[in-house]
């Protein structure tokens, strides 16, 4: 009973805030709603006993991704009103297509029956004395080594891509080079001269 109540609470807030992400006029609000979404989704995962995914969701998506979004949105001067120009025009047909898809998927999912045999196909044993963080850890480097490693490569490429597309070397910008600073000797940079009054000096 209590579980059902909590489930519906999380679910309602999740859907509502997801709608708000799309609908809110202020982009900062949109991102904040997104964060709310993540929290509620994490709550749903917790209810299912998948605490690892729940916390990953909070740590990665809320802690890193969404905050990054927030920074970007606040730092970039984007005129969101312009971006939403076609919104009304496309709203009816968009809604129609979305609705059709939604109804169909809902009907499909409602006809869904849990296939007990599918459990035996999963490599994670559903035993009470192994919590799911440990279970994931066990298969991640054994059975799923391959996709795990390739995911690593994907992240590497993402990093290369970000650097390639954004990093610029500006020769006229002076940077601090600590090693140079530390290596310098006094006589390399300082020269003491006696200057006669009114004579000036040649540097």
């Amino acid at each position, binding site marked *: 009973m209590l579980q059902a109540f909590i489930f519906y609470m999380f679910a309602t807030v999740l859907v509502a805030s997801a709608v708000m992400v799309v609908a809110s006029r202020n982009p900062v609000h949109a991102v904040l709603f997104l964060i709310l979404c993540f929290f509620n989704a994490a709550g749903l995962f917790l209810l299912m006993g998948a605490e690892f995914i729940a916390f990953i969701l909070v740590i990665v998506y809320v802690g890193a991704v969404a905050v990054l979004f927030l920074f970007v949105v606040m730092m970039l001067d984007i005129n969101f009103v312009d971006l939403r120009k076609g919104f009304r025009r496309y709203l009816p047909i968009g809604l129609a297509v979305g609705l059709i898809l939604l109804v*169909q998927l809902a009907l499909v999912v409602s006809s869904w029956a849990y296939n007990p045999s599918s459990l035996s196909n999963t490599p994670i044993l559903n035993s009470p004395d192994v919590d799911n963080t440990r279970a994931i850890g066990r298969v991640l480097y054994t059975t799923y080594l*391959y996709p795990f490693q390739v995911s690593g490569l994907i992240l590497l490429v993402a990093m290369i891509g970000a650097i390639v597309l954004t990093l610029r070397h500006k020769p006229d910008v002076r940077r601090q080079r600590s090693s140079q600073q530390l290596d310098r000797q006094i006589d390399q940079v300082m020269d003491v001269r006696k200057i006669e009054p009114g004579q000036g000096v040649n540097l």
Partner: protein
Amino acid sequence: MNFTSLYTAFPEISLAVFAMLMLIYGVVRGERSAQTVGIASFVAVLSIMIFVLKLGFIYSPGFPKLHISAGCYGCYAFDYMFIDDAFARFVKVILLCGSALSIILSWTYLKKENLSHPEYPILILFATLGMLLMVSANDLLALYVGLELQSLSLYVLAAYNRDNAKSSESGLKYFVLGALSSGLLLYGISLIYGYTGVTKFTSLSKLFIDMHQPPIGVLFGLVFICAGLAFKVSAVPFHMWTPDVYEGAPTPVTAFFAAAPKVAALAVLARLLIVPFGSLAHQWGQIIVFISVASMLLGSFAGLVQSSIKRLMAYSSIANVGYALVGIIVGGTAGMQALLIYVAIYFINTLGVFAVILSLRRKGKSLDRIVDFSGLAKTNPLLALTMVIFMFSLAGVPPLAGFFGKYFIFLAAVKAGMMPLAIIGVLTSVVSAYYYLRIIKLMYFDDGINIFDPLPEFGLRIVLAISALYMIVFTIWPAPIIDQALIAAHSLTGG
């Protein structure tokens, strides 16, 4: 998993290690290393291709031994997520060859446009790696990660000329739409997984053979997966990114796009539809028929009004994907063989065309309008002749390789009793012949500005020579490719 996996996936692993070594080298040496990294990457890709070819010889002395059902020992790796069969090897040779040629294709262009950085070949390497993983995937998860590795590299490559608005725009478009398609694909995978509990191709195959009527959820999943992959092969109605991205991306990148990823995605689609969903052929057949016919029609018709050669090639590739999909629809050994022969010819043909486009410069500026070809035959008859070979081949004029590609596809369709498909294919080829022949007409019969820079350096010349020769040699000596394609097709259909 055990250490045999490392041997089975040796080409992929060595490519990954090499790419990372190159990355380190590039970071340490800085911009100066661009040339070295490029050459080293070319050599490495070529060596790996030769290695894969050699693997093929070791494993396939005669195709009857290659039945999957007869126990494909040593073929699987990483807990059956990775498969190394004749089909994968055939496609991998094409992919590696395409990548190698793309790397040398790009040298002059990058130098002239001031884009020569070590990251370029490295991104190509990672994209290639992703494609290799895709075609060797025996698991939906493996498929997805391979696909993402490839796609991500390609997004970056499309936007590689970051100071050019068009290039950035195309990269962004490709990324946004690609993300959408990945989402569709992933959603499809999750539906499949939800309804079956497995992601391995072989397990799925067994499951569907036993199943009398698959649950509709599986079909929905299939639709989403098809949509995701149709995006990657740029089939209608998921094709709309293609012209924009082809036009915006730097030309050598476009060449790479047209040659390698398309082949990889087609191969993956083929494996996916034939192996795990083979018993649902009458279900997905309808979608693919629609996609194929729509692609053939749209690719042929829309190409007629283009003025940019790169956009034209985009529509040409859409049409060609339509033909290739006919091979998948036909299915069976014949269909797969036809598909493989088709892609083996198409990829090099299209690389050749792009080599010609890249060779076309006027006072150092690259040209990409179709009318720029006017009068090429007078200033540079050899280049014009090469282009004629490619155009005739793309149009499917008999003595050249391109004819045989289409011939096998349509023959397979006719034999399988799919006359309407073959007829549509032939008719659309006629329509598309217009834009190929128009270029020839421009080159030979029209007067243009008639000033072109002299033929470019070594790299492009090699690509031009190889691809033009291939178009002709295939006619005389097609046996190796036809035979290997048959072996590869057998390994997939198990027939």
